[in-house]
């Protein structure tokens, strides 16, 4: 069923694209401008029909451009430029970048003490965390804290409240449902296993693993 829908999506998209296809335009090679400063780009791009980028919010915007098949990032940047932020590299250390608790370089977006503010920042577009981090990145810390019974973890209390054996409190169920619906991806950090959520009657016969 899902495959049929995917196929339909591809076919419809392709049909639309073919409808507008008439001429091909090659992208501009920017290799000769590799050493130019971003502010110099405006000299050419002003009035060229293509707005310049690398502005104040380029950190948020660059993904849209970088994922295109015809992106010209490589004309100026090597892959190490990307990976030093996305995968904790540090070949050319930017002095504005800090170290994580693991001794890895962190991108500049992880300001002040990111452990302190990450529960708030992670909700600003929840997808962002997973662009660089695997799910296990969260559990490496959270699971260890739980194992050590460290009270300082400071997570919003969400342990199940039972009104009688096997019967969870309706108020807790309501809160739990609402929070899970809004931020289910973060639950994986501490509860990666199916058994973490099916040990009472709320989720019988849940599929998956």
């Amino acid at each position, binding site marked *: 069923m899902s495959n049929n829908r995917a196929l339909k999506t591809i076919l419809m998209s*392709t049909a639309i694209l073919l409808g*507008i296809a008439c001429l*091909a335009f090659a992208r501009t090679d920017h290799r000769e401008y590799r050493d130019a400063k971003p502010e110099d780009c405006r000299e050419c791009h002003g009035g060229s029909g293509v707005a310049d980028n690398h502005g104040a919010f380029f950190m948020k915007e660059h993904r849209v451009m970088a994922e295109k098949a015809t992106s010209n990032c490589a004309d100026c940047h090597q892959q190490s430029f990307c990976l030093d932020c996305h995968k904790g590299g540090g070949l050319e*250390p930017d002095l504005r970048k*800090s170290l994580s608790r693991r001794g890895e370089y962190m991108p500049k977006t992880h300001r002040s003490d990111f452990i302190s503010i990450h529960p708030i920042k992670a909700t600003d*577009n929840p*997808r962002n965390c997973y662009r660089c981090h695997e799910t296990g990145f969260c559990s490496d810390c959270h699971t260890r804290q739980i194992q050590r019974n460290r009270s300082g973890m400071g997570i919003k209390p969400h342990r199940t409240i039972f009104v009688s054996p096997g019967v969870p409190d309706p108020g807790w169920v309501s809160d739990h449902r609402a929070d899970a619906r809004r*931020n289910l991806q973060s639950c994986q950090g501490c509860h990666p296993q199916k058994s973490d959520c099916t040990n009472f009657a709320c989720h019988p016969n849940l599929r*998956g693993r």
Partner: protein
Amino acid sequence: MRIIRVAVLLMAVACVPFLSHAAEGKVTSSTQYLWYQDFLSNDKDQSDVAQYLRLNVTKLDKEGKINVYGYGRVIKQISTSDEGRPELADDTFGRLYYFYLDYRDAVKNHLDLRAGRTYVGSAAVSGTIDGIYLDVRNLGPVGVTLFGGRNVTFDNKSETGACKDSLAGMSVYFDTIKNTHVEVSFGRKYDDSDLARENVGLDFSTTPHEKVNIYGKVKYDTVSDKVGELLFGAKLAPVKSFILRGEYFQSHPTFDEFSFYRFFSVNDYKEISIAAEYWLTGQYQVSGRYAREDFGGSETADVYEAGLLARPIKDLTLNAFYEKRNGYAGRLSGFRFNGEYRISRAAISAGIDYDDFRREASREGTAKKYWAGILYELNKMFSAVARVEENINFNFNRSYQGFAALNITY
């Protein structure tokens, strides 16, 4: 073993042209000492030594079409091991970020290829693979990219993932109308041979007028039968030096095919934002952004950001940024300020980060960071870097960390 075999094969292929042509090589090395405090290791001081190495071998053929690029590091923790973190000490970890053969114009004007460990990206799926990437260009009005290989994932200082984790995809793109790009892509991720993700992506951007750019991106998750991500935006440049941007973003949490999480009902995340940036003069830029975030079930948040970039005198750059956030998940008010001043061969930098946060129904407090660093270029080949930082937050009353590095380029 597979990585080593691929690396050896690539090196062998790369060396063949050496027999008839003088290639150019550039090596960038950084030898570093890093110190920090890991609160999971009972707040013990930790220190590592790391060696980064990037290798660019270019012009392996007369036309300069064949190049080899590599980047990796070796790191070792030299401090005393903590009982709770035995995996961090007594071992040396290596991480190969990429190592690939880049062959541009393998078929003139029609085919570029990369083989080895390389980053691949598309609207549908992206990641680092041990495999091959082909860009077949100028097939009439379209171009096609194809890629596939072992999916490479990195964990704490090392590499993770099984041999049978893989990633494959393709895209068809149309640069048909001037300043317009349309691309459809398809991608799959396999976890130990089991299909984990399957996405269809659509990406477009067009600049119908020099003052208007419209763009969008859709990622459709065929496993959950949902639109995983939707982005639509417009960028306006009504007057010179002023850029205005409006965006709508929507995402739906998606999970692996076999994950039990994918059977739960979830809310969409929606965000509407507007941003503006303006160069007052060539030396001063101001920027601002507002975002309204909607988490479903009447929970929302408002995010305000303001920034200033200033170059008041030659060789001095100042950055200031302020963010205020109210709403679901908590309140946040913070700023960061930093500057860099260049004196001859040296660049001195320093900065302050401050955040006042109120997490929803849990912790509140402040986090402060003070840092300073220096870069000194001894000559064209050698440079030295040092950075120190003090942190004051709920984990540490006082925590110091930093790094010192010697960089060599030749």
